[in-house]
């Protein structure tokens, strides 16, 4: 029996949420807009147009690189990646080839090979014997993150992607909304049998973490079956069919990626001083890893921590609620208590504010205090009014307890919990 080791790398594309496009001033807010209303000579690739890079997009790419523990080279440049396809009006995409903004990082023990900046393509709609083109998305800043093939299971791939997604949301540089395609996932997979495999299969454009996991599992099983027969899986690009939960060959002839990269002559190089990079690093916001540690120090349960830090809106809400408590000097509400309320979704963070949550917690506490007072008074009353039943109980007819519970429930008009009342009654009757 051979042992099989899955070897997985990831390529992730993330659309930045800048206001304008990467190389021109057209609005980058393309989603759901009328076709071809967000274009100009630059993003339509008309002759003579001059692309000028968006400063914020560059800063955000570097921020992301730093958050992924990358090295930021002092010299960087853009290149032209040439290919002929109608989603690109220029016949090339402005991208970065050999000198990207960030290199050699790591996240969750996965090496980050590079983080580079490029422009998104237009959108194509295939319709019968024609293809319709909308260039609104053409030229929107797109960051590509490439990992080393350091991932060895679909679970780890999913966990890696989720952490990357969180980091992007914490940095506030993209919606990273997979439904809208602003974060696109492409795993490459091979299965090794001791030596390094000499093929890899790329699955294109998957738009959910669960689908990535399923696609990887599907591929691993498929490769094993082929390897079992002494054959080697074909190196190719495959698509993901989410309805059938399978991958399928896109029958691309394996083109020797003949992109003929060359330096973009229209854009001068980008040169960063060490102190600029250091300043950017110092200005990074707290990231999921930092928040995990902070919440742990507050004594929160690990499962709750993961739920709270998963979504930055929930985290912000939690921290604000905690702050409300601190400022009020209230010592009765613990961090874990706030977490419980949030995790059990007893409050809608979109509709209520952190103060509401704290008020709700305080009200609940007071209520339960009040109701326990009422219950205890009712128990005393019922005991003194039902001497016969008490005698029966003490005489061994313990079944009579349910009658007494009923009496208490009646007296409190349903306040309090029957089980709780029974316990209290038994305690009182036994110990006085």
């Amino acid at each position: 029996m051979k042992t099989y080791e899955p070897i997985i790398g990831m390529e992730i594309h993330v659309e930045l949420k800048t206001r304008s496009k990467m190389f021109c001033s057209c609005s980058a807010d393309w989603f759901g807009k009328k076709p071809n209303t967000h274009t100009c000579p630059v993003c339509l690739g008309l002759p003579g147009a001059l692309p000028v890079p968006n400063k914020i997009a560059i800063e955000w790419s570097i921020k992301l690189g730093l958050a992924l523990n990358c090295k930021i080279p002092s010299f960087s440049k853009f290149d032209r990646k040439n290919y002929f396809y109608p989603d690109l009006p220029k016949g090339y995409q402005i991208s970065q080839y050999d000198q990207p903004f960030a290199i050699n990082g790591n996240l969750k023990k996965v090496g980050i090979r590079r983080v580079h900046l490029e422009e998104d393509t237009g959108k194509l709609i295939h319709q019968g014997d024609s293809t319709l083109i909308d260039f609104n998305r053409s030229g929107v800043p797109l960051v590509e993150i490439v990992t080393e093939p350091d991932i060895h299971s679909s679970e780890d791939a999913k966990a890696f992607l989720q952490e990357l997604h969180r980091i992007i949301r914490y940095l506030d540089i993209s919606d990273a909304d997979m439904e809208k395609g602003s974060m696109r996932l492409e795993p490459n997979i091979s299965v090794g049998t001791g030596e390094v495999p000499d093929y890899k299969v790329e699955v294109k454009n998957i738009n959910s973490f669960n689908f990535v996991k399923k696609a990887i599992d599907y591929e691993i099983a498929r490769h094993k079956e082929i390897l079992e027969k002494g054959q080697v899986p074909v190196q190719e690009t495959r698509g993901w069919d989410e309805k059938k939960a399978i991958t399928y060959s896109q029958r691309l002839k394996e083109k020797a990626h003949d992109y003929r990269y060359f330096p973009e002559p229209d854009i001068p190089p980008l040169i960063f001083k060490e102190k600029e990079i250091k300043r950017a690093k110092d200005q990074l916001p707290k990231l999921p890893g930092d928040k995990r540690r902070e919440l742990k120090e507050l004594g929160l349960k690990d499962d709750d921590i993961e739920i709270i830090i998963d979504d930055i809106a929930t985290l912000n809400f939690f921290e604000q609620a905690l702050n409300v408590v601190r400022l009020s000097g209230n010592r009765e509400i613990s961090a874990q208590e706030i977490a419980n309320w949030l995790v059990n979704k007893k409050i809608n963070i979109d509709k209520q504010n952190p103060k509401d949550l704290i008020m709700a917690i305080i009200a609940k506490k007071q209520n339960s205090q009040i109701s326990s007072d009422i219950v205890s008074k009712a128990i005393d009353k019922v005991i003194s009014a039902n001497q016969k039943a008490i005698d029966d109980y003490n005489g061994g007819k313990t079944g009579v307890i349910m009658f007494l519970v009923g009496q208490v429930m009646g007296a409190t008009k349903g306040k309090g919990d029957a089980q709780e009342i029974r316990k209290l009654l038994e305690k009182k009757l036994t110990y006085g």
Partner: protein
Amino acid sequence: MSENSLTKDEVKHIAKLANLPVTEEEIIKFQKQLSETVDYIKTLSSVATQGVEPTSQVTGLKNVTRTDEPAPSQTQEEALSNAKNTHNGFIKVKAIFNEQT
């Protein structure tokens, strides 16, 4: 004939990358023309470049960027004005499928 002639296959490959249909006669014609062009570029090899820093820029400019301010775009009409075929605000081309390239 130039000293480093491109092969016919190379010419076909270049044409394919540019999505240009070429006839047999054109291949022969371009084989000659492209080879001459490549030879001409080779003139650069005669320049002594020892000790010269490699660069892809000659302007001496660096860090030319713009602030992230959106400005009005062209109208849809203007955007489509050079397109041969349009449909409902889209540019329309013959069907292109990834699968078939």
